[in-house]
């Protein structure tokens, strides 16, 4: 195939096929390879909500989208540049998102009569001219692999299963990407199945060679490597980053790690990963429910562990009572909530940012808990460390908010050296002379931590109001007021121990965008675009929500208008209004889908053009 090379900053590829077609696998391979050659990468797997939907159906389409570029990419890409579709349904579902002139690579074997019917196509779109706006590359991948592997004598089913690797090989050719990473990976995966290994290696090269030898002309996109900071990188999902973050935090704290958890989409993978870390001495209890998950973690924390519990919305709802207990006990605890679309079961596989309210306000009584929020997959690592740091230093539960989008999408992560991470060493009380269960460190207001097993520090804690210093049960009215205020003051004081908020763009002026969580990607992209267009606009992204950075009020006061884009009905916006008494404009999307950068750009542009419209 002759190719016309076009240089691009960023490209979006989407591998789409049936649930059983292995699209997640090839997507992951491509994104790892892209990372390895120095591109900035952002990915997102898009599963159907059924475990295994019937073959070929529209709702059974599984896809993996990769956005990579020579500049920092912050989203999974609004529009698809290259769509690989293994069957008719995967074309149908994804076509609306392919940009004009984009490349469509279709496996013609997936466009048989049955496929067309299931996809509700009357005629074959590959043949009826309806795709003339695109560059269509038709390949009968199944047939090609049949020929390629005829001599191997493996089952037809096994042959058919290699077609995804063929497609991957072809795409590698198209972008001139090396095969070695995937070859290495295949060799490890199929170490014990030499025939299958051979079949897959052949498929990879067949796809690659097919490109090189094909006759038609095609425009190929070339993407230079990005100008990323020096260092060692890997692609990582938010969930894996949280899991590794917990182990790293425990290492830095010189404490063993305990995770008490109950499976729930989209947080379960954190539990999966950590269940595989036994060699780190990690103890995991897959509990009978979310309540036991958090309570067992509280028990382990009492025993001197770095303890954590992981969940999503419905699980967080169940943990509410025990969170209040952790507050009054003043024990360290990391609570990771991977938000999904609610209310109730809602759209369980879809992301949303609608647990901020419950994280902030969702306890009976006055029970303040610090909240931090990761801004993307890679940032989940850093914020897990921060959550652990605050929990241990201030003797408090801390809620880390992630969401289903960053939890399952990947980003390249610059792997920090362990020495770069903060020291989290704790100071257990051991001296009976000075020990009082609720004596506080005057600077942090954290109470003393004495764990069972320490001679002569026997004491009793619990959910009843505590007397200041002694920790005895107290019904004294003034003591109650004092303790409520102390607990509040301790949390408020953390503001002195977190980074100040930063403003990108003008430091004062007309319009400030404030955001939190995974909307970072689309907002940052839109913001950069608008700045490039010469607009005066500013951006503050919040990773600390309770307490807010000390300078946030000051920042807000320097702008005439504030706007918060959120995947909810305005929870951060309401909070800012309550705390800072500034009217806050809102851009809300609550569709179980992340914002597109373009959507945000358009909304911000509208605001920029309608200055009067306050």
């Amino acid at each position: 195939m002759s190719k016309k090379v076009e240089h691009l900053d960023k490209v979006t590829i989407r591998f789409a096929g049936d649930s059983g077609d292995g699209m997640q696998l090839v997507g992951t391979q491509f994104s790892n390879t892209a990372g390895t050659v120095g591109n900035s990468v952002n990915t997102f797997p898009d599963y159907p909500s059924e475990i295994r939907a019937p073959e070929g159906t529209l709702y059974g389409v599984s896809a993996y989208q990769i956005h990579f570029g020579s500049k920092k990419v912050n989203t999974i890409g609004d529009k698809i540049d290259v769509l690989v579709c293994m069957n008719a349904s995967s074309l149908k579902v994804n076509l609306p998102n392919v940009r004009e002139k984009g490349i469509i690579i279709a496996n013609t074997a997936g466009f048989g009569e049955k496929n067309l019917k299931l996809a509700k196509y009357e005629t074959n779109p590959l043949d009826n001219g309806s795709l003339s706006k695109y560059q269509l590359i038709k390949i009968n991948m199944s047939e090609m692999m049949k020929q390629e592997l005829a001599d191997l004598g493996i089952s037809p089913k096994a042959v058919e299963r290699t077609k995804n690797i063929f497609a991957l090989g072809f795409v590698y050719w198209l972008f001139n990407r090396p095969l070695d990473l995937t070859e290495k990976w295949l060799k490890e995966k199929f170490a014990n199945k030499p025939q299958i290994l051979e079949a897959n290696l052949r498929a990879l090269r067949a796809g690659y060679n097919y490109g090189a030898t094909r006759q038609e002309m095609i425009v190929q996109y070339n993407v230079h490597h990005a100008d990323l900071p020096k260092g060692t990188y890997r692609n990582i999902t938010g969930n894996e980053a949280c899991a590794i973050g917990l182990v790293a935090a425990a290492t830095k704290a010189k404490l063993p790690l305990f995770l008490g958890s109950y499976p729930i989409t989209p947080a379960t993978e954190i539990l999966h990963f950590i269940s595989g870390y036994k060699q780190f001495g990690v103890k995991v209890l897959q509990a009978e429910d979310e309540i036991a998950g958090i309570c067992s973690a509280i028990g382990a924390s009492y025993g001197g562990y770095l303890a954590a519990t992981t969940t999503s919305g419905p699980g967080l709802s169940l943990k509410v009572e025990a969170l209040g207990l952790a507050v009054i006990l003043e024990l360290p605890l990391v609570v990771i909530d991977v938000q999904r679309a609610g209310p109730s079961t809602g759209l369980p596989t879809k992301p949303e940012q609608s647990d901020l309210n419950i994280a902030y306000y969702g306890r009976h009584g006055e029970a303040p808990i610090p909240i931090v929020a990761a801004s993307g997959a890679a940032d989940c690592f850093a914020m897990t460390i921060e959550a652990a740091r605050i929990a241990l230093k201030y003797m408090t539960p801390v809620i880390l908010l992630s969401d289903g989008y960053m939890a399952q999408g990947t980003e390249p992560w610059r792997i920090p050296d362990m020495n770069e991470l903060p020291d989290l060493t704790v100071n257990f009380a051991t001296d009976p002379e000075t020990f009082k269960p609720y004596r506080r460190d005057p600077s942090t207001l954290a109470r003393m931590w004495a764990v069972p097993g320490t001679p002569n520090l026997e004491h009793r804690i619990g959910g009843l109001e505590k007397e200041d210093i002694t920790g005895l049960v107290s019904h004294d009215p003034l003591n109650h007021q004092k303790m409520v205020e102390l607990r509040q003051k301790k949390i408020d004081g953390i503001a002195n121990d977190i980074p100040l908020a930063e403003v990108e763009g003008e430091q004062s002026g007309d319009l400030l965008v404030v955001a939190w969580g995974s909307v970072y990607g689309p907002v940052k992209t839109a913001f950069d675009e608008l700045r490039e267009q010469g607009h005066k606009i500013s951006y503050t992204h919040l990773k600390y929500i309770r307490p807010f950075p000390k300078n946030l009020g000051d920042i807000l006061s320097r702008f005439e208008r504030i706007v918060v884009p959120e995947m909810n009905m305005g929870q951060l916006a309401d909070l800012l209004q309550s705390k800072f008494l500034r009217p806050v404009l809102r851009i809300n999307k609550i569709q179980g889908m992340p914002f597109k950068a373009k959507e945000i750009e358009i909304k911000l542009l509208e605001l920029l053009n309608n200055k009067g419209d306050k």
Partner: protein
Amino acid sequence: MTTMLQDIVVKRNVPTNQYTPKDFKVDIDVRWCAGCGGYSILSQVQRIMPELGIPREKIVFVSGIGCSSRFPYYVNVYGFHSIHGRALAVASGLKIARPDLSVWIATGDGDCMSIGGNHFIHACRRNVDINVLMFNNEVYSLTKGQYSPTSQPGQKTKTSPFGVVDDPFNPASLALGAGATFVARGYDRDPKMLQYLFERAAAHKGISFVEIYANCVIFNDGAFDKYTEKEYRDDTTVWLEDGKPLIFGKNRDKGIILDGFTPVVVSFEDGNYSPNDVIVHNEKDSTLAFILANMTYNPNVPRPIGVFQSIEKPSYEEKVENQIEEVTKKLGEGDINHLMCGEDFWTID
């Protein structure tokens, strides 16, 4: 210098004569009503603690909420008064994290079997090495007298002014059905019996469940008199002793045989039956344990008291530690740098 958790986990040696019961008393008023069954349970716990040979700092009492759950305040060891129903969940986390500790639960029939039922059956299933003392007074006392899942049909309480319509749990059966390895029953009025049962519970590895009939003088006074008062108990209860036949009665003149699978009382007086005919208790026989447990609400037979079952199984926290050891042996000790880098990483310089 900072103290590491490892330093604390290390076990001190205690000479067995180091403690007296007084060492386990706390210098605050016990705030139960005069006559409450809790007092006896408390004393017996304090009495056996010195015998366990466990340093005081290694013992933890966890509780939920209820009159009974105030218990940890009254024992001079580590104490954790958690929230209603969650004592076993908290304690499971603690024991899995810290197998070096001796973990005890003080709980009530409401705390353990009503709101805490799920954690109870799962702790039984997992066989976590925790000693559960359930103060059964067949009522919710701290909230001033509502019926509980062990209240008796027809019982009048504040929430059952016309009588309870629920059937009660049989705590021993529930524990056995859930897989508990050690299941026993005792009552407040017999200090020696309680001491014996507590020592047995402490010695048992894995979950130990001890149901204790505890009189609530305020909200359900005399509920157990029929079984605990001197004038009746010899005829209304049967003491379970491993390897011994099930004989009871003031004159030890009655025994229990099986008719099919149904336990039946026989008398030795008329010469039809002799002590040799009656069931011999075997703590290792799970089926027998069920038969005995099912006698509880059977009005035709005495109520069994003592150890229903005591079987050996590895405890949960032990299995967790073993797996960690095995995996570590196989994969080598975890390397955090390796974990962070994963399999596919690259360098930009």
